[in-house]
């Protein structure tokens, strides 16, 4: 078969609009999801058993079910249960934020655990009060150590965001599929869509290894 990529020039604007929706959704859910994830990560290491059980159940459930199912559940069930109409975008944000919260909470938990007990000994020996320990010693180290994995989490979220096309949100994937159906040129259109995702995600994954090496170099004592 003959490939003709020139047909895509007509749809540049539509694709860009789709990409814009994808990026907007991703960035909003990164911010909300990281905040949720940090809180849940702390809750999972808490001494309160109820808090620990609830947060574990949330994380295990979201890691143990397909994101597509989560998305459908939120789209069809949340409005029914709340008795309010939710826009597609809102539902998408809720679903992907919950997903991001679950995966980043594991990242934060691991980075909190990686701070050795001798750091706490030093805090006691220097007489640092609890709030100074948390704000000046634990938090900065936990965040620094979490950065590389958080970045990978962001890439995962960016990729998973393509699922919102399945519930009719006009993201990059949705627009691409529409163009592909209308033009009967799936090879050209879908390949370009894949390439756009790749061009954004790939540099980020490279950045992960660079930043990882840097942070490890800086934090190794």
């Amino acid at each position, binding site marked *: 078969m003959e490939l003709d990529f020139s047909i895509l020039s007509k749809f540049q604007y539509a694709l860009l609009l789709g990409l814009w929706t994808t990026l907007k959704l991703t960035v909003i859910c990164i911010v909300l999801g990281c905040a949720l994830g940090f809180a849940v990560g702390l809750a999972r290491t808490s001494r309160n058993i109820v808090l620990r059980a609830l947060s574990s159940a949330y994380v295990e459930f979201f890691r143990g079910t397909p994101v597509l199912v989560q998305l459908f559940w939120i789209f069809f069930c949340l409005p029914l249960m709340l008795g309010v109409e939710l826009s597609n975008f809102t539902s998408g944000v809720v679903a992907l934020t919950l997903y991001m919260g679950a995966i980043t909470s594991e990242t934060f938990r691991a980075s909190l655990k990686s701070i050795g007990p*001798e*750091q706490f*000994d*030093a805090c*006691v*020996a*220097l*007489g*640092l*009060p609890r709030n*100074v320990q948390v704000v*000046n*010693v634990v938090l*900065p*180290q936990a965040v*620094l150590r979490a950065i590389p994995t958080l970045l990978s989490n962001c890439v995962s979220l960016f990729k998973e965001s393509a699922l919102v096309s399945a519930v009719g949100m006009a993201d990059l994937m949705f627009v691409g599929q529409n163009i592909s159906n209308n033009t009967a040129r799936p090879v050209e259109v879908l390949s370009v869509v894949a390439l756009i995702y790749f061009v954004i995600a790939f540099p980020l994954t490279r950045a992960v290894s660079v930043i990882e090496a840097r942070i490890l*170099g*800086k*934090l*190794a*004592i």
Partner: protein
Amino acid sequence: MIMSFSLPLVKMQSLHKSYADGAIQVLKGIDIEMKPGERVVVIGPSGGGKSTLLRVMMGLEKIDSGSVTFDGKPYISSGSSESKTVIDMSVRRSIGMVFQHYTLFPHLNVLQNLILAPCKVRGEAKSKAQDRAQTLLERFGLGAKAKAYPAQLSGGQKQRVAIARALMLDPKLMLFDEVTSALDPELVGEVEQVILQLAAQNMPMMIVTHDMWFARNIASRVIFCAGGVVVEDGPPEQVLGSPKEERTKEFIDRVFHINQ
């Protein structure tokens, strides 16, 4: 008659400490009195309770029973209920400690490591703390390293920074827990030099070490600790040179044999 009388700086009374609900007893009744200006080196076999003793002194470990007074004030006591140890935090602030594994904060540079506690605990002005820190670093030959991160320092440099960091709080007693054990042999000297410098200024200190040469050089008094009790206690030339107790003699012979 005129009595020369000086109050003890530290008075430990019948300290008991166990792990795993009493299954492993590490301290089985320790009584030590330390006078101001004394430099006590604690030696003994691994698991004999030396490090635990220092960690108790720093308030890092709970005790089962006993008490410690510091400078005439009650410091640590086993509380009314069994699992409670009462530690006077204001007293604890006048004790500094340096550990085997540096324990610098890796995300802060040398200067930030030094000024964190003075600024946050004592509310000292940042510029004043920085000046003091810089002076201290110069004295320890680290003047050029103020902006370096711990990962960029050698083990010996890290340990000297850790000592400087503890001194920033003007401690009345310094605890050194095997501070040269993790170092490469060629770096041990520079750290011991710094501690000898402090000794020359009459800083009271308690030191746990395996380095008998260093022990003999720095100690004004040596305590041999084994099996959770003080086996022998006296001036360095006696305990290290001609020990009275058979267990001390065996240990010294073995260690010197290995050292040479």
